[in-house]
């Protein structure tokens, strides 16, 4: 393998590994921009991964799996919204409860449905080359010969940016997350916005989980999200709740993970465990470096109580 192919292969792997993170982080962006803290991303990713495997087995079709993952992710989002918005449960506690429950339920059902606790080899999705563009050296294979979900992500990032900063829907979302009292006075339903945002975050994280199961490894393994939801959350903070910089933060974490899979090729004597550790270390260092510089939405984590005089 010559150096150039190695390099493009590496970039391509980085891109693929950042996809689940990016779906989860961009989903989390909706939720957190609306003021609902979302550490449940981990449980949503895991539920999505499981649902996609179950859906793919039941329908014999990748897209059936994807659809079920989005649906189940949305239901988990609905639960998080109900707990946080309607019942006003502490948002951290709700997220933790969802993560623990998701871990338990998915491993229970996977042992029942897939016997050994691992789904058999699942159908994958094919890369679709874009005629003409895919023949450009380096960039072509990297950007224009990928699977449809990567294209979807390429479209989502500018779309979400536009939605957030250029439309009245985006304005309502940001207003609810920054100053719900004002949004409420202006006639925006804080409850509706927060429910919608958290459900969207569930759907997107569910899709990220589906990518993890159907594209990365083609099977479901218990606990396979392995903290990726938390890394997505770190990417969101690192990206300062902006879609473009959040997507780049995810790419950075994806590139770190790809490094771990490829470093053996360099024949460097770095223990495998240190490479697995790397994304978590970088996420930690990123959080430390950004401390005090990354300002979350003002109402993040605070339930909105219409009848109270605070806020």
């Amino acid at each position, binding site marked *: 393998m010559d150096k150039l192919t190695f390099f493009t292969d590496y970039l391509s792997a980085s891109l693929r590994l950042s996809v689940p993170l990016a779906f989860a982080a961009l989903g989390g962006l909706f939720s957190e921009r609306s003021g609902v803290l979302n550490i449940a991303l981990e449980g949503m990713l895991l539920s999505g991964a499981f649902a996609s495997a179950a859906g793919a087995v039941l329908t014999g079709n990748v897209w059936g799996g994807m659809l079920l993952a989005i649906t189940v992710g949305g239901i988990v989002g609905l639960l998080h919204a109900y707990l946080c918005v309607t019942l006003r449960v502490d948002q*951290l506690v709700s997220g933790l*409860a969802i993560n623990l*429950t998701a871990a338990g339920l998915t491993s229970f059902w996977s042992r*029942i449905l897939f016997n050994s606790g691992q789904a058999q080899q699942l159908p994958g999705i094919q890369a679709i080359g874009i005629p003409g563009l895919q023949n450009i050296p380096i960039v072509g294979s990297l950007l224009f010969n990928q699977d449809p979900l990567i294209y979807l992500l390429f479209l989502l990032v500018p779309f979400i940016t536009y939605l957030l900063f250029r439309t009245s829907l985006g304005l309502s979302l940001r207003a609810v997350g920054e100053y719900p009292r004002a949004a409420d006075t202006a006639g925006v339903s804080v409850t509706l916005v927060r429910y919608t945002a958290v459900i969207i975050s569930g759907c997107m994280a569910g899709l990220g989980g589906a990518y993890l199961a159907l594209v990365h490894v083609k099977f479901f393994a218990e606990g396979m999200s392995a903290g990726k939801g938390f890394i997505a959350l*770190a990417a969101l*903070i690192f990206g300062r709740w902006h879609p473009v910089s959040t997507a780049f933060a995810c790419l950075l974490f994806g590139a770190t993970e790809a490094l771990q899979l490829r470093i053996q090729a360099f024949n460097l004597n770095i223990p495998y465990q240190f490479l697995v550790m790397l994304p978590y270390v970088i*996420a930690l260092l990123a959080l430390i470096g950004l401390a005090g510089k990354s300002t979350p939405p003002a109402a993040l984590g605070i339930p909105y109580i219409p009848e109270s005089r605070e806020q």
Partner: protein
Amino acid sequence: MRHESSRIWLLLSPIVAIASALLVGAVLIALSGTNPVTAYTVLFTESLANYYGFGSTLTKTAPLLLAGLGVLTALKAGQFNIGGEGQIYMGGLGSTLVGLYLQGLPALIHLPLALLGGFLFGAVWGGIPGYLKAVRGVNEVITTLLLNYIALNLVGYLVHEPLIEPGAPSAYSPLIAQSAWLPIILPKTQAHAGILVGLIAAVILWVVFARSPLGYQIEAVGLNPVAARYSGMSVERTIIIVMALAGGLAGLAGSSEVMGLKHRLFEQFSPGYGYDAIALAFLSRGNIAGIVATSLFFGALRSGANVMQRSADVPVTVVYAIQGLTVLFIAISFAIERRFRVIRIK
């Protein structure tokens, strides 16, 4: 009157939450094709009413209790310590190092030193996020979570390379010196003195919170950091101390696993006790006697689940679902309770 009814609720709400979770668990068991009554009967009689089963329950209760105390202590100061799992790994590592490299000491000295090693390693692992929170304002939830994965892989590396027993078929360290083993307390079972370490820690903690200025300071910071600061307390210092203490307690859970049960360091030796500990701390609502009771319950669930899997063919994982659901229901009960309180005040 109000005070009295809320005290009853304090005891009742965890019971209602556990009962609801067991009910959902029963539906899951039924869906998997087993009679839930049979399954639960096997689970609880084997884990609580059978001598050997009870021994195994105590073995699992010990790390749960210690890690649970770790989460609870941090929660008293308003800090979410989600890093119990990583602190358990570091604690196990600390005790292993003392157990391996300080040979030839009498047990009376070696055993406490090995426990201290575990406590200190855990305390460092808890103290780091405490420092980052207090001094740099980094949210402790995400840092403790990330540190879990770092500790897990660090221990994984150590038992694969520098600490591996020569010629071992898989990755584990050599046996620690016998002078650092926690003694067996129920003959012919695995039940070891780790549970006593947990109970002693619980009593000490109870005294700290009920009687000492430190305990008062921790609770003051937890209830109202602004007021605590005005009254002259250092909120930052309290947060660092409390997170180190929390990490140390969870570290002892790792010590107990290494010194009482496995006698060597394994990769991935904790089956998620650090995460169960979060459930325990919420269930017991800051009450130390409560955490002793709930960790015994969770210990029984874990030990009974193995028997249930063998004799009733129900996957062990149903227990993890039940534990998660317990937290979910206790969270809901918090919300309902607050609503009641609002209505009463009106």
